[in-house]
């Protein structure tokens, strides 16, 4: 039978080839699935994977959707590599959106470039503070951050709901749960005229680069790897695991909070009850899909973004039910991951 053998070293060749394998397997699987469901095979695949890439608007939307996914994934990848399990990026994102909105509404109709800077900082701060709670609970009492961060996500969602149904709602909006539209000084400028893509994309790329620098060149990156290895090694190396918990949560919370601020001050332009369709959770997938490496995470966010947009396109162009796109997306991710196995293992025939 075919078995997997570990490679001595990760295969460079496979690192580059595996995505193509994955795409190939995905096409075959997708084709079979469409065929079984009685949908046109080639058209389905084309609509799903190619159409978004054939128009410039498609590209702009792809990149726009990737911003929050990548930001969440980037922040999380640091903690995950240090063995710290922040499952609550979604909650930190929501608190970031709330923080940014509070600033934007406080400086309503105030002019100046600094307003936007404050809005984004408000977002980062909101995310960091919310991330700090599970971190401190962990260092203070040892309470598992997996549980506390997940539970606090629900709390954050409800708190945001309470705010947007109450104090932050638009005074002229017939008591509907949404804030007033932010004034222009709080809005992220558009990067690419005629589309919705805003400067958040550039900020995200810069942050990805900075994170890569920190991970590979800075002392923090070394600490991160030591902590991720084993706690005993960390003690020998003189790394304080408690400090790492706090730092990890500040980083992932800050990134997620910024993602939230970009959602409200970028694509939405106001605070609404539903800020995120689960970017914080999908960010976990993105982080691992990218192998916890900043560059990989950015690529991973683009792949995920493509599957979302492709799914919508398939609904519009072919009346494909959203359930099919969900099944498809889940399967795609599994295949992508399966093909990544080839980087560190090779197939061997053994009887």
């Amino acid at each position, binding site marked *: 039978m075919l078995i997997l053998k570990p490679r001595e070293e990760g295969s460079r060749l496979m690192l580059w080839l595996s995505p193509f394998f994955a795409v190939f397997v995905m096409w075959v699987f997708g084709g079979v699935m469409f065929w079984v469901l009685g949908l046109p095979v080639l058209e389905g695949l084309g609509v799903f994977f190619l159409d978004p890439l054939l128009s410039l608007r498609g590209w702009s939307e792809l990149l726009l959707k990737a911003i929050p996914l990548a930001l969440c994934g980037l922040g999380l990848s640091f903690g995950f590599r240090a063995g710290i399990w922040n499952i609550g990026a979604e909650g930190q994102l929501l608190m970031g959106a709330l923080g940014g909105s509070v600033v934007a509404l406080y400086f309503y109709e105030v002019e100046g470039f600094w307003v936007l800077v404050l809005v984004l900082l408000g977002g980062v701060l909101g995310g960091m503070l919310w991330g700090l709670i599970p971190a401190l609970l962990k260092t203070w*009492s*040892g309470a598992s951050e997996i549980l506390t961060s997940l*539970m606090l996500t629900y709390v954050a969602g*409800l708190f945001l709901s*309470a705010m947007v149904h109450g104090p932050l709602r638009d005074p002229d909006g017939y008591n509907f749960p949404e804030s007033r539209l932010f004034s222009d000084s709080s809005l992220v400028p558009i990067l690419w005229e005629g589309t919705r893509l805003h400067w958040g994309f550039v900020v995200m790329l810069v942050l990805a680069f900075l994170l890569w620098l920190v991970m590979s060149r800075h002392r923090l990156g070394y600490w991160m790897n030591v902590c991720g290895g084993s706690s005993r090694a960390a003690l020998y190396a003189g790394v304080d695991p408690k400090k790492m918990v706090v730092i990890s949560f500040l980083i992932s919370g800050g990134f997620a909070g910024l993602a939230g601020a970009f959602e409200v001050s970028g694509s939405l332009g106001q605070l609404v009850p539903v800020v995120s369709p689960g970017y914080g959770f999908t960010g976990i997938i993105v982080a691992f899909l990218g192998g916890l490496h900043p560059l990989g995470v950015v690529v991973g966010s683009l792949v995920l973004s493509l599957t979302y947009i492709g799914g919508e396109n398939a609904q519009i162009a072919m009346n494909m039910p959203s359930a099919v796109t*969900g099944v498809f997306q889940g399967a795609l991710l*599994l295949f992508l991951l399966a093909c990544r196995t080839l980087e560190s293992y090779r197939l061997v025939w053994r009887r």
Partner: protein
Amino acid sequence: MEEILISGLVTIVTASCPLIFAGVGEVVTERSGVLNLGVEGMMAMGAVGGFAVAHISGSADLGLLASIVCGMLLSLLFGFFTQYLLINQVVSGLSLTIFGLGLSALIGRDFVGFSGLGFPSLFPDFLRDIPVLGRVLFDYNYVVYLSLLSPFLVSWFLFKTRAGIVVRATGDNAEAAHSLGIRVVKVRMLSIMFGGGMAGLGGGYLSVIYTPLWVENMVAGRGWVALALVVFAAWRPILVLWGALLFGGIAIIQLNVQAFGLGIQAQYMTMFPYLATVLVLVVMSKRSIFQKSPRSLGRLFFAD
């Protein structure tokens, strides 16, 4: 007042069942060293499979059986990917949730709008008529008793039987277990399937017994709560039971308090079960009673 208390207690017990099933199943999976985050997806599959079979066959029992099978089938997929293809468990589990939710919606399209069958209590009526205790103790169907019993059975299995020791050994140190001649992958596959079956049953309980109907997304996040309860319970089945009752209890009490007409804004009331769970965990952790996860949890195992 007495009526409210009794009735509330009954609701708490019956509302906690899906969390208990899914949580106890996941304890076994995680005790074998495998972190399956796909509970929500497996519950959704169990819910749709259970309702579909119950609806077509007219037998609720067959439906529950089908929900177990559906949960298991989906978990087999997870097992194949993580144990044979050696893919990261966290992402596999999350992808499995997306996949399971989509597939359940796809299968369930033809079952929307039908009401399920009723489900009889296990005990005869005269026992239920005993004042107070009758309703608290004897007013449930057999699945509820099964869910209340399952933590104890699984606890006995994990800590008192040889097979249970094997599972725990696999989870604590897969390499050592392997060198002792334990077939790690096989043990883990079985544990994954058990977790999947239990999650499926939890979903089936929802769609066949608790609210006998099928609608998309009807699991509504209970899979995630079950996952959190496993951590809360420090991987002990019996503590999952208490955790589920605590969480379910506060969620129900919160609704009752609202119905009383206290003027606290509803969003804050709905936060209570989540906050309470965090609070209790912090207090327990501070006393450092436990908090030991299986040491190989989430790590891939490769036998060369």
